[in-house]
């Protein structure tokens, strides 16, 4: 799936660019976007390292385990195939809470650790498990409650009511997450009977 998508994106881009006379821009984009990707990684290095460091303290101190106990009804419902005392539960809980609080940079390392743990439960290492699919769909459905970054942009660009979007954004986030959960549950059930 990803192989085809990636290839098709590049082919469509270059063909459309040629037809619309945007080849110069395409050439520039090839170089610039590759550079930008690494610039982004350099920014990420510091922030992600800070978070994985702090989260390690939370993990060793047992805070992550405490949090996953609080979230355990949710985790049981969404991931019935993850054993009760499995470390994947801690990382999934941390990822969800970080996302809800809008700490996206903390969510990514926890999420990648969760994938690592879920992979240990996987029998066929090249195929995603149902729990992995559920985890990613919910993650991507957006969990963030208060979109602080967007509010900051709104006020920077002169909005008279930068926070007017909070309640609408929470509603839209609920709708997208609910749609994701329902879809993941239906597909999971279809597969496991």
């Amino acid at each position: 799936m990803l192989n085809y998508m990636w290839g098709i994106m590049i082919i469509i881009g270059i063909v459309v660019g040629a037809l619309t006379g945007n080849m110069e821009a395409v050439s520039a984009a090839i170089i610039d976007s590759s550079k930008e990707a690494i610039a982004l990684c350099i920014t990420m290095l510091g922030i992600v390292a800070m978070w994985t460091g702090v989260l390690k303290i939370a993990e060793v101190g047992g805070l992550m385990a405490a949090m996953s106990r609080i979230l355990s009804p949710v985790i049981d419902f969404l991931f019935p195939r993850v054993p009760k005392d499995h470390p994947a539960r801690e990382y999934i809980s941390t990822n969800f809470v970080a996302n809800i609080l809008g700490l996206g940079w903390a969510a990514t390392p926890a999420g990648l650790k969760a994938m690592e743990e879920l992979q240990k439960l996987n029998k066929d290492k090249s195929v995603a498990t149902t729990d992995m699919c559920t985890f990613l769909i919910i993650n991507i459905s957006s969990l963030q409650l208060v979109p602080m970054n967007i509010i900051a942009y709104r006020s920077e660009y002169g909005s008279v009511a930068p926070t007017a979007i909070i309640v609408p954004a929470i509603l839209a986030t609920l709708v997208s997450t609910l749609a994701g959960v329902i879809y993941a549950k239906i597909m999971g059930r279809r597969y496991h009977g």
Partner: protein
Amino acid sequence: MGNILTFASAFILPCVILYIVGYGLLSKLNIYDIFIDGAKDGIKIVFNIMPTLVGLLFAVGILRASSAFDLLGRLLEPILDRLGMIVEVFTLAIIKMFSSSASTGILTDIYKNYGTDSAAGLMASIILSSTETVFYTISVYFLSVKITKTRYTVWGALVATIAGVVASVVITNCFLM
């Protein structure tokens, strides 16, 4: 209201860190050693993500520069019009699926051209608040554990994203305008 919220949100990050570090100190952990240990993992994680990110941003860069997204938007304009959605907002929703930083650029363009409190500005704000970078997240997460068969993840993520976009459009048109 805005000020209180900005003020309160400035507390989230420091308080989370204060809580974790304070708790670790009280539990008599070697917190600095543990931090360094964890930070090493973070560096490794980013290095592992790097190739994925280059691949994805490079492909999106080509697509954006080729004006393929604008073309798609113009094609769909009659349908978008009926939904009260302008082409720029549609492009924004598509780009957000690939790259968060690219979508921020489009968002600020919409703010400049239409105003932050216009229908387009509000719709764009809500869409970015209720959707995630679908393809970026899927490729980074799955490639990190070398999974190539992603089953229904892409469809599920698209279902959630479309639901979020539709909700944003409906809420803006029905309640905010």
